[in-house]
């Protein structure tokens, strides 16, 4: 009977009220290293700028590049507005070969590139996480089969798979249908080609987590395998997932741009950043450099900030680094 009194007297100096999620976040290592790291701050700001551009493209853009009635072929290949001879105040970044406002087209292109990138990564992550979790948790033969499968997938380069699939699709179903389905096809192809990246990362951290005693505790409790995998192990592998996701989105955007550049991606009527670069390529020697260079810079900056953010996250979330 005396136990309760004695043990409850063992209160430790823990503050009375549980802090809110935001207060807790402000105490974390992530937050502290973020407010100290200038590069991460700038990268995140630029990235948020891109996201806003993409989300509100229809509101920001002065023209709708998909609307043929707003396009005048007479305005084609106008240089940016700072060119005093030829520039037009209406089109501050100039126009492309079809007379579309380049600024509006870039806004819509960013929207398409980011959407494809993020959707492709969501697909990769879903496949990769499920396969990685099962392989890591079950181990043994299941693990062997799934991982050999991943190795086979990895031995084909993403570009090769994408080019073959998209070219065959275009050839057999015609360009017409392809143009309608381009977005979905790109997401599928890039998504499926890159899942082993996720599967391998997740498997490695599941193997590490599986050895920890809280997993044994969950088994002793009698929890089912599914619940242990998704409720107990998965949340503890979120850090690596977050890190590789940022890098993978950048990779997916690059893949999409490359495919579009090769004419296997988004059609010219709905240009992504890649197809925009490609469409301007023919005119680069006739002096209309801006059609290629400006979307190019936009793409490079986007990929760069995503990679910088990914690097920063990896450093911050690496438990080996922040223990010391």
């Amino acid at each position, binding site marked *: 009977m005396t136990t309760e009194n*004695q043990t409850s*007297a*063992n*209160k*430790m*100096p823990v503050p009375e009220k549980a802090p809110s999620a935001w207060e807790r976040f402000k105490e974390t290592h992530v937050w*502290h290293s973020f407010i100290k790291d200038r590069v991460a701050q700038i990268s995140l700001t630029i990235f948020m700028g891109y996201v806003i551009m993409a989300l509100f493209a229809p509101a920001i853009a002065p023209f709708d590049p998909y609307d043929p009635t707003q396009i005048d072929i007479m305005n084609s290949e106008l240089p940016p507005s700072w060119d005093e001879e030829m520039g037009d105040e209406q089109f501050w970044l100039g126009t492309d070969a079809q007379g579309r406002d380049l600024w509006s087209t870039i806004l819509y292109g960013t929207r398409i590139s980011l959407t494809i990138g993020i959707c492709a990564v969501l697909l990769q992550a879903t496949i990769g996480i499920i396969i990685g979790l099962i392989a890591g948790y079950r181990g043994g033969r299941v693990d062997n089969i799934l991982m050999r499968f991943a190795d086979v997938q990895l031995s084909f380069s993403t570009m090769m798979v994408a080019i073959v699939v998209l070219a065959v699709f275009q050839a057999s179903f015609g360009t017409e249908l392809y143009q309608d389905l381009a977005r979905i096809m790109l997401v599928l192809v890039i998504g499926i080609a890159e899942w082993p990246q996720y599967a391998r990362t997740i498997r490695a951290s599941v193997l590490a987590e599986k050895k920890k005693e809280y997993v044994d505790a969950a088994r002793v409790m009698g929890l089912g395998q599914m619940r242990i995998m998704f409720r107990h192990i998965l949340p503890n592998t979120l850090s690596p997932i977050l890190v590789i996701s940022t890098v993978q989105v950048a990779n997916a955007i690059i893949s999409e741009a490359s495919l579009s550049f090769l004419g296997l991606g988004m059609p010219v009527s709905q240009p992504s950043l890649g197809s925009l670069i490609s469409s301007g390529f023919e005119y680069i020697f006739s002096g209309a450099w801006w059609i290629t260079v400006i979307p190019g810079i936009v793409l490079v900056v986007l990929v760069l900030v995503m990679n910088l953010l990914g690097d920063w996250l990896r450093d911050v979330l690496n438990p080996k680094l922040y223990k010391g």
Partner: protein
Amino acid sequence: MPLLEVKNLEVSFGLRSGEVKALRNINFTLDRGERLGLVGESGAGKSVLGFSILNLISKPGRISGGEILFEGKNLADMSPEELRDVRGNRISMIFQDPMMTLNPVLTIGQQMIECLQAHRKISKENARTIAIQKLQQVQIPSPETRIDQYPYELSGGMRQRVVIAIGLLMDPDIIIADEPTTALDVTIQAEIMELMVELCERNNVALILITHDLGVVSQVTQKAIVMYAGRIIEQGPTREIINDAQHPYTQGLMNALPQMAIPGQRLNQIRGAMPSLQKIPTGCAFNPRCDYVRDACTQQLPGYTASGNCQVACHMVAELKQAEQASEGA
């Protein structure tokens, strides 16, 4: 002059939330060949003290006050070159995990020879002879073949022996051993402790043994220091402290051991836990856990009172002693 004299040592750590004192007001001496035990629970600052003696505190920590006099010279303000001459050469250190000292990709011999050649002008052959001799001293069977093995080929106990041999290489004056047997099994721990006592006695080496295990301190050391929340709370001859501890914390620590209780009965636990360094209570740091707490304990940092040959930081020493004598008399 004592071999090592630590005077008013203070070590601080600069944290996000401000500067925190990890060690405060540390004073003790160590004579040649003397074996000293530093006891305390995790967070008491015993390892920090071990590192600071060698001026090995790394950022964000620093020695923020006091002196560490080794043969009269202050280690706290020595140049890096002078320090290098002392570290490993005159004072060596043994860690809990042997793999912290041993490089897994080099053979034991390569590491020992490299260490010897770094401190002395000596040929490889001579260095090897000395290395084998030291391995023999730590009772490693067939040292001539063992010397060419890699650390992973040895068992945990053997590795710790090798680390001790490396510690002895330069014939140091002081060995600082930080929990050297905590990771080992009891039978091996007993062997290694016996070995260390024997080696220290034979070579007249002083030993600073950092441990949480009062049993080990009792068997190995002549002098003991009990630490709590970054401060020495009691120091004196080991036997006196073990048999007649004065500070309520030392008493509590000893009474909490299962061997001190009647089997099947509740153990005499100390309530609560050691405070973190950011939240050390005012007055005596132990006061929230102490059974004999008075007003003075919560207001004033206790100074050191001599009791027998011991120094005790407790306001209640005299009173407790009287009460004890009274109960014995009755």
